């Protein structure tokens, strides 16, 4: 075990994967000598060289498009998109090509690319360095969508992504890249996809949060405990595949659900969890499902703290759910 920040854990995961398999290559902008703008690839250029840590021309569609071609011929490319806000030039490559290769070829051309990208607000990044648009990718069959919230999960889920056979969109909560530290197992540590993490047990209300929303949700749960409300916190960790059983089991126990994400509410991932609960846990619900989310606006600069959910807004929604019934 080693005490690491989340971004250090990503770095260790990448190094581990590259040492284990010479077919693993990294490509992206500024990831070489510079080590990435968030330093996620720090030191890797020096250890593995420019043929495995590839500073590409500045084109996201080129990064993902060439990564697809590499994967079709036996490499395991891990592409870095510098900010999730810049992923859209590659959207066509991701949804039209990467997600559909296995299906359209009857399984003859599986295409395993891992796309890492820092996402989310709270870093004074304004409209174009803050977005959290996981729902676009969750909506596309063929992709897996992963969002770690701890250093151990960052490394463990990343190594699972590298050893998976499907394309993975790996969303890194940049707000807590360095704000969170934790013990990370050394070596080939893997966290399975589709298994939620029970962050905190409780009996009165279930709080569902992932990525950078987990710390304020835990903070909210601690505040609620002082008021005698025992909140359970569940981090799904992978949005696709989703651990439906863990979500249903929690609400069957507590009877109340609050879904937290920083993405906009309308058609956000919270709607999927709410629909799941409405379809499969309806008779367990004691009060309406609540969503605590970003506003249905573009991501703001000056007012980002107003935009983002925080421990107070999460706790407020949980209290309302408990008081409703």
């Amino acid at each position, binding site marked *: 075990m080693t005490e690491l920040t989340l971004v250090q854990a990503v770095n260790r995961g990448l190094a581990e994967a590259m040492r284990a398999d010479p077919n693993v290559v990294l490509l992206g902008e500024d990831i070489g000598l510079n080590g990435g703008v968030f330093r996620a690839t720090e030191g890797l250029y020096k250890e593995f060289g420019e043929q495995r840590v590839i500073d590409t021309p500045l084109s996201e569609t080129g990064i993902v498009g060439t990564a697809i071609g590499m994967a079709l011929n036996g490499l395991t490319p891990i592409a870095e998109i510098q900010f999730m806000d810049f992923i859209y030039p590659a959207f066509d490559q991701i949804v039209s090509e990467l997600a559909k290769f*296995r299906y359209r070829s009857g399984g003859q*051309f599986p295409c395993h690319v891992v796309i890492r990208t820092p996402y989310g607000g709270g870093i004074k990044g304004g409209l174009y360095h803050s977005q959290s648009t996981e729902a676009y990718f969750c909506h596309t069959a063929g992709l897996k969508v992963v969002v770690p919230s701890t250093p151990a999960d960052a490394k463990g889920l990343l190594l699972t992504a590298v050893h998976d056979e499907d394309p993975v969109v790996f969303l890194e909560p940049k707000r807590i890249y360095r704000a969170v530290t934790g013990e990370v197992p050394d070596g080939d540590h893997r966290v399975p996809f589709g298994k939620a993490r029970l962050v905190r047990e409780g009996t009165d209300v279930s709080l569902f949060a992932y990525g950078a929303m987990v710390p304020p949700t835990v903070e909210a749960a601690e505040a609620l405990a002082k008021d005698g409300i025992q909140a359970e916190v569940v981090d799904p960790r992978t949005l696709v595949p989703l651990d439906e059983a863990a979500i249903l089991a929690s609400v069957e126990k507590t009877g109340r659900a609050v879904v937290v994400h920083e993405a906009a509410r309308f058609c956000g991932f919270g709607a999927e969890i709410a629909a799941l609960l409405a379809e499969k846990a309806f008779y367990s619900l004691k009060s309406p499902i609540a969503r605590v989310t970003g506003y249905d606006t573009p991501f703001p600069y000056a007012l980002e703290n107003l935009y983002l959910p925080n421990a107070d807004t999460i706790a407020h929604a949980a209290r309302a759910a408990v008081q409703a019934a």
Partner: protein
Amino acid sequence: MNGAPALVPLPYSPDQVAARLGSDWQPTLRSAHRWMILARTLDARMQALQRQGRVGFYGAATGQEAVNVAAGLASRPEDWVYPGLREQLVALVRGHPLVTYAHHLFADNLDPGRGRNMPCHPTAQEVRYVSMSSVIGTQIDHAVGTAFALRHRHEPGAVLAFFGDGATSSNDFHAALNFGAVWGAPVVFCCTNNQWAISVPVTHQTAAPSLAAKAAEYGLPGRQVDGTDFVAVFAEVRAALEQARSGGGPTLLEFVLYRMTAHSSSDDPTRYQPKDWAARAVAHDPVARLEEWLGRNRLLDADQRAAVAAECESAVRDAVEAAEATIPPVPASLTEDVYASGSTGWTD
């Protein structure tokens, strides 16, 4: 003669052809001729079947046979092919069985792509012919990535990336030529300029003097080739592949062609093509040009021509019959191959 342009003859002596194609030039030409006749037979048959409602869609390659056959014959098994809409013949020439392609066209239970893609979007993994989408230009990046991987893994071979004139306006054309040049990747960019992107003429696609001219800005060699001249295409593709395989980096080849049919079975070119287009196209018919040359040089007579045609008719008929006798994809296949583990989560 009513003023229609005469067929443009291939401008070679037999010695010149031998110099370009190599010592086995005669069997190469005979093979090329047979494949071209097969392609034309298939196009005619499939367009008829589409009109009868027996095939859902068809995009003919009539007029582009010289490029497809030359690429198929000039490439090696270790090479890869990323096709656009009209390169299925490359897969057949590289060894993909005609009957398997027919199963794809009929989207039946024996289609390797399991009936998921539209007709003319086959999957032929065994000949390194990669499954395509209908999105324009995206495959050019994939070709560069695969070429990078060939070199990275110290594998022989190079990659042929096909796309049309319209694709030269796409983001991915730019990205791919740029990445390919920066990396010196073993890829040959093959632009089949049939002068029409559905209804938009190539003159509205670019103000560049040619599509090949764009290569210079990326630091690549670019050459314009008569795409209806089998001999020229074969020599250019082979040379560009050899350059790529030997570490010389990518080339952009622009094959100037004439689209001799509609864009697809869903298109009506009388709405936009000038009245003399068809006559101009016929003057550059790659099959007629090769046949005329073979006849002039006593390498093909009427009986031989008839025998080839009959053999191709028979092969296409057998393939169509086999496909029409095959059941559609089984319903359970709907949710398979989305992920490695099989289906998506919900089935209820």
